């Protein structure tokens, strides 16, 4: 869906206006730069997702425009060479990396300057696409992650590069578009070639807004706005599967970092809040509530077993976190805890599959799970509120249902594996 191309703007009937950036920008603005975030030498998932999407977009772009543009990954850090070697396997044609102790922690001030320097530098282009290196001014497109670091970094980098930025994007299309805009084109229709349509979900959640970053072609305010940049919501695009046959060049960039800047900010301490509980990492969340009451300990174990089979994270309702039942310490201290609460006073989750066991569905809880893709609930009371937020509602007692269900899921999986092997 993200690769959709139409020839709307390219149709022969469209009269190209006198001022057309198409010819000019073909050389000045090149390639798609992807800012890779990483931790301890491992890329964040969103970084690989961005590379995957950039790969798909650029492949189509090259087909459509018969060009040879590249996906360029940017890595800043200390001891990142190994990481850089990996990135071509996920779709990068080239990796530019800057190594420095000062880049070890992500410091906005320093990172911004280094990224902006790289984006303006013809140096790396000599290796990536030597023929273009004289004309290169800026990247054509730039992708950042829409997370804490990426959102802020994209803003400051684009302020430095004085170009436009769209945030929280979940769909991208490259298109030739005919634009008629009071300021941009002085009201005249002008075709903007190779324009990145950046789709962002509106605050209401109902609407999609498409943002374009366009050069001002109006002579009164003429000015180029490139790169066209955006930050991309984590978890939206799929990464390519690791393919060691993919090749890419790796370029070491020596960053210029001023002592003055280094003195401005110091990271004193960096503590990871490591929780063994991570709802985002799992496709499935299995939650339980007071419905376990008839035999709290045994029923909790049943729920845990199901979670284990499904490789699911375990969530609880708020009341459960208050340890209303007498359960053994090993279960109690691990599962009957506030960190697992899903709802307004806990976490909001949106897994592929949410299974609510013995949860009646207080509004507070529903608020934490209703964005889940698919919801199954198991409850004895068929009028419980959770039913309204369920795709499948199983009426019955969990004591009876779970053992059968667990067994059945296991068997079916075993059969599937057999089939695959055959």
């Amino acid at each position, binding site marked *: 869906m993200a690769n959709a191309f139409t020839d709307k703007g390219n149709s022969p009937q469209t009269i190209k206006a006198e001022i057309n950036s198409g010819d000019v920008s073909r050389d000045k603005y090149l390639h798609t730069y992807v800012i890779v975030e990483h931790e301890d030498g491992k890329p*964040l998932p969103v970084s690989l997702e961005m590379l995957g999407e950039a790969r798909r977009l650029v492949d189509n772009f090259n087909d459509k425009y018969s060009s040879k543009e590249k996906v360029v990954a940017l890595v800043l850090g200390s001891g990142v060479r190994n990481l850089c070697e990996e990135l071509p396997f996920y779709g990068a044609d080239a990796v530019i990396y800057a190594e420095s102790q000062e880049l070890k922690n992500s410091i906005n001030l320093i990172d911004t300057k280094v990224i902006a320097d790289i984006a303006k530098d013809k140096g790396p282009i000599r290796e990536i696409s030597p023929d273009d290196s004289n004309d290169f001014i800026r990247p054509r497109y730039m992708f950042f992650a829409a997370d804490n670091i990426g959102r802020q970094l994209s803003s400051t980098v*684009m302020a430095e590069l004085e170009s436009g930025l769209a945030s929280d994007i979940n769909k991208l299309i490259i298109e030739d578009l005919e634009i008629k805009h009071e300021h941009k084109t002085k009201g005249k229709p002008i075709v903007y070639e190779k324009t990145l349509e950046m789709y962002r979900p509106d605050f209401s959640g109902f609407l999609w807004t498409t943002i374009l970053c366009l050069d001002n072609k109006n002579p009164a305010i003429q000015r180029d706005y490139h790169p066209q940049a955006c930050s991309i919501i984590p978890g939206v695009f799929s990464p390519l599967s690791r393919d060691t046959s993919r090749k890419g060049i790796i370029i070491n960039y020596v960053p210029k970092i001023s002592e003055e800047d280094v*003195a*401005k900010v110091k990271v004193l301490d960096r503590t990871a809040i490591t929780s063994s509980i991570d709802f985002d990492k799992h496709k499935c969340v299995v939650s339980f509530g007071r419905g376990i009451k008839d035999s709290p300990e045994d029923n909790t174990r049943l729920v845990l077993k199901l979670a284990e089979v499904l490789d699911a994270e375990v969530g609880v309702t708020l009341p459960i976190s208050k340890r209303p039942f007498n359960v053994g310490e090993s279960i109690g201290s691990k599962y009957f805890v506030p960190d697992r609460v899903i709802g307004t006073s806990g976490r909001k989750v949106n897994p592929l599959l949410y299974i609510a066991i013995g949860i009646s569905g207080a509004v507070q809880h529903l608020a934490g799970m209703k964005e889940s893709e698919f919801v199954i609930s198991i409850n004895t009371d068929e009028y419980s509120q959770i039913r309204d937020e369920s795709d499948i509602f199983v009426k019955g007692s969990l004591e009876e249902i779970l053992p059968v269900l667990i067994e059945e899921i296991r068997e079916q999986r075993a059969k599937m594996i057999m089939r695959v092997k055959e």
Partner: protein
Amino acid sequence: MASLRVAVIVKMEPDFSEGNVSYNSDGTLNRAETKNILGPHSAIACRAAFYTKVIYGAEIYVATMGPPIADSALQQAQLISNADNLYLFSDRIFAGADTLATAEVLKTGINMIQEQGKKVDIVFSGHRASDGETGQTGPQTAWKLGYTFLGNVISYYVDIENRKIRAKRLISLQGFYDIIEEVEALLPVFITVDPLYKANYDTITQRLAFMKHRKEASKKAQDYKQYLNVLNAQQLGVDPKLVGLPGSPTIVYKVEKIPKAKPTRRATMVDGSDRGQIVELATKINQVLSGAVVE
């Protein structure tokens, strides 16, 4: 005498709470019918600035760019922050600005405040707005001002003597874990305040000062016009080419309904005592998790 000068950048936003918000039939926000309030993230920024008032006796400036009615957001901001001066940058030509063009106005405005011999040591802003702004304005304004930018700050204290700030930032590395980073930065800095920001007033004296300033704030806010400065483009001296629509690199090309917005769920009933149905359920679960199409 204030030894610390602080500015807060705020934004007026529609009140999205039920009972106040109104939508047009095409699903877009009906701005005329929806009341405007100080954005919730802006309010948090004001709370963070208020801390400098209570603890360091800072002089506080609140600024916003917006239409004339945005002065009510400034009033609410004053109520929270006990601000000493309110600035509204308002001009027709600012309308339709994207973040870069907005940052240009805010930068010019803050520099203008500074030109009156009043160096601003810390600028606070909310971490994002709830009506479509993107968390970009803060960092972009910071960059244009040349201030060191610290994002997602959850707590801080200022070392006034050494002109330094120590701040804790909450950084979420999606797919990994969250990190609390403690940084020390030389003033001036630009801070965006995380929604989890918590001010720590941990002695009776600080709490009493808190209450005193809050009372003072409510008194001031009743008379907020007395503290209000409204400035247009000319008074600010901005370059018209860099603000509003002409100064915006980006445009909104189109707005459409998200096609995949989920309909109301309608639960299929499964009888838990029927083994056959549980078998089907297991199949369904395996399908969903293997990414098969779910209808």
